[in-house]
């Protein structure tokens, strides 16, 4: 570790830490000498090298080396209660403030607008219920797209006395802004739109949705869980939520950003922590690690994401050539760089996942036979897409090209075997 963090600025205001956020001054992040022992050969010394065959980054990105180092250091240096007045507490407080400044800068927010939660789901719940509480006099109608993450849909249904209404999407999974606008015109307490779809990768028209919401005076929550660390973070939000394990931070850290002036009121019992927005003792070491991971993700984004985008393009082009009766889903261009989804006719998703797992490849599926609820993904259903034999491949930063080659090499045989088992050859 760099050492500075061992000696918190004596009596120093947090702004001294904040000023250093992202530039290597007193914090525990990025570029510490400890990095030297770690990463195998890669494009840069801070590059991640995910486990071989791991192609499910949209579920969870493996912990980045910079985050691991920051976490270990912060466990020693950031364990105390940051709200107290003694040496260890001040050190924890400075670390937390630096992490907040750093994350806020990436989100296009002010530090005091950013709170850390215990998960992305908790951030969504507090974000939505808080907007509903702040707007109780404007009714309790909640307007979202039909393809939001289940956390958003469940939170929308949990608004006291609320009614959730969803706007349709086109076959690519993109929100119909006209329909969204029409629903808003009937009155709403709040609206929520994802930055990009978590299953098919299609970017949502957040700017147009924000414009519509603004015109109707309805606050907009943007669920940016799949974009932060991978793609541009949209603006125009009243509340923005994200999740650290999606960008290579640790699990157990979410982000809730509430724009200054937004009519948001905490739906939880009073607790002064995290700006009064999130109850409970904040996990400073994990938050520090989350901020370190995001700095690392941002530092390599402009070089790494084009590489992932090209690998996804290859999958999109090759899979339909290699496997008969496959439908590639989502927008081919206006999409997340690292996510691709396709469905295979006459295939059950569970058998497909098992076959790929045996080949050492980890992916996920939105098919009904894989889900707990025995229903296909609501995203695929809303798109009117084929849901059987569905696979989502999402590339972690630093993924080896070889893993993509291997997927393309084994997929035709895995699909053919499932079809043969089901007696579906030649149909």
């Amino acid at each position, binding site marked *: 570790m760099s050492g500075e963090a061992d000696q918190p600025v004596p009596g120093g205001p947090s702004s001294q830490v904040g000023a250093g956020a992202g530039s290597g001054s007193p914090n525990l992040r990025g570029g510490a000498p400890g990095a030297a022992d770690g990463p195998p050969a890669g494009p840069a010394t801070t590059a991640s090298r995910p486990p071989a065959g791991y192609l499910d980054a949209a579920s969870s990105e493996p912990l980045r080396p910079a985050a691991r180092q920051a976490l270990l250091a912060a466990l020693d240096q950031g364990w105390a209660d940051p709200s107290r007045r003694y040496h260890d507490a001040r050190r924890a407080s400075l670390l937390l403030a630096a992490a907040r400044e750093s994350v806020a800068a990436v989100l296009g927010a002010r530090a005091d607008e950013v709170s850390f939660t215990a998960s992305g789901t908790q951030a969504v719940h507090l974000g939505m219920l808080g907007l509903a509480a702040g707007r109780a006099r404007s009714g309790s109608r909640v307007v979202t797209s039909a393809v939001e993450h289940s956390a958003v849909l469940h939170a929308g249904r949990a608004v006291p006395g609320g009614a959730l209404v969803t706007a349709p999407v086109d076959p690519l999974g993109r929100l119909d802004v006209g329909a969204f606008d029409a629903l808003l015109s009937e009155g709403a307490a709040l609206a929520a739109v994802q930055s990009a779809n978590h299953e098919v990768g299609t970017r949502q028209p957040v700017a147009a949705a924000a414009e519509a919401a603004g015109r109707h005076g309805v606050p907009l929550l943007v669920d940016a869980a799949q974009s932060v660390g991978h793609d541009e973070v949209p603006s125009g939000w009243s509340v923005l939520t994200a999740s650290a394990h999606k960008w290579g931070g640790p699990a157990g850290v979410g982000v809730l950003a509430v724009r200054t002036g937004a009519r948001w009121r905490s739906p939880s019992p009073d607790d002064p922590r995290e700006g009064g927005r999130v109850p409970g003792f904040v996990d400073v070491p994990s938050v520090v690690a989350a901020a370190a991971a995001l700095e690392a993700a941002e530092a390599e984004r402009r070089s790494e994401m084009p590489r992932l985008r090209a690998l996804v393009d290859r999958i999109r082009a090759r899979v339909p050539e290699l496997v008969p009766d496959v439908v590639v889903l989502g927008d081919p261009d206006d999409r997340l760089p690292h996510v691709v989804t396709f469905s295979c*006719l006459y*295939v*059950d998703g569970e058998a497909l996942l098992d076959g790929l797992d045996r080949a050492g490849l980890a992916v996920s599926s939105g*098919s*009904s036979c894989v889900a707990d609820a025995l229903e296909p993904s609501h995203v695929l259903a809303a798109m*009117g*897409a*084929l*849901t059987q034999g569905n696979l989502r491949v999402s590339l972690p930063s630093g993924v080896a090209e070889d893993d993509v080659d291997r997927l393309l090499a084994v997929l035709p045989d895995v699909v053919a075997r499932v079809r043969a088992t*089901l007696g579906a050859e030649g149909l």
Partner: protein
Amino acid sequence: MTDTDGVVVRPPHDRVLDERGKRCPMPVISLARATNVDPGQRLLLLTDDAAALSDVPAWCSLRGRVLEWTGPAPDGMGDAFLVAPPAEGEGS
């Protein structure tokens, strides 16, 4: 159309495929098999698999079949899909 009790009656068809109790992707596979056996038939598929609501229309567009009608199964148990050959001149 309705019968004498005022109950909605399924449209005319040549064959019923009762796939209720079977899970995705079996109902669509049965539909494809029956279509292969006699491409000219109008098939009424009965299924209680939730995935069919997405997958039957998707299959029809992939295979150039016409989904003429969708509604509840005649006995109310599950859904019914009437799948017909393409209109004259479009081939199969």
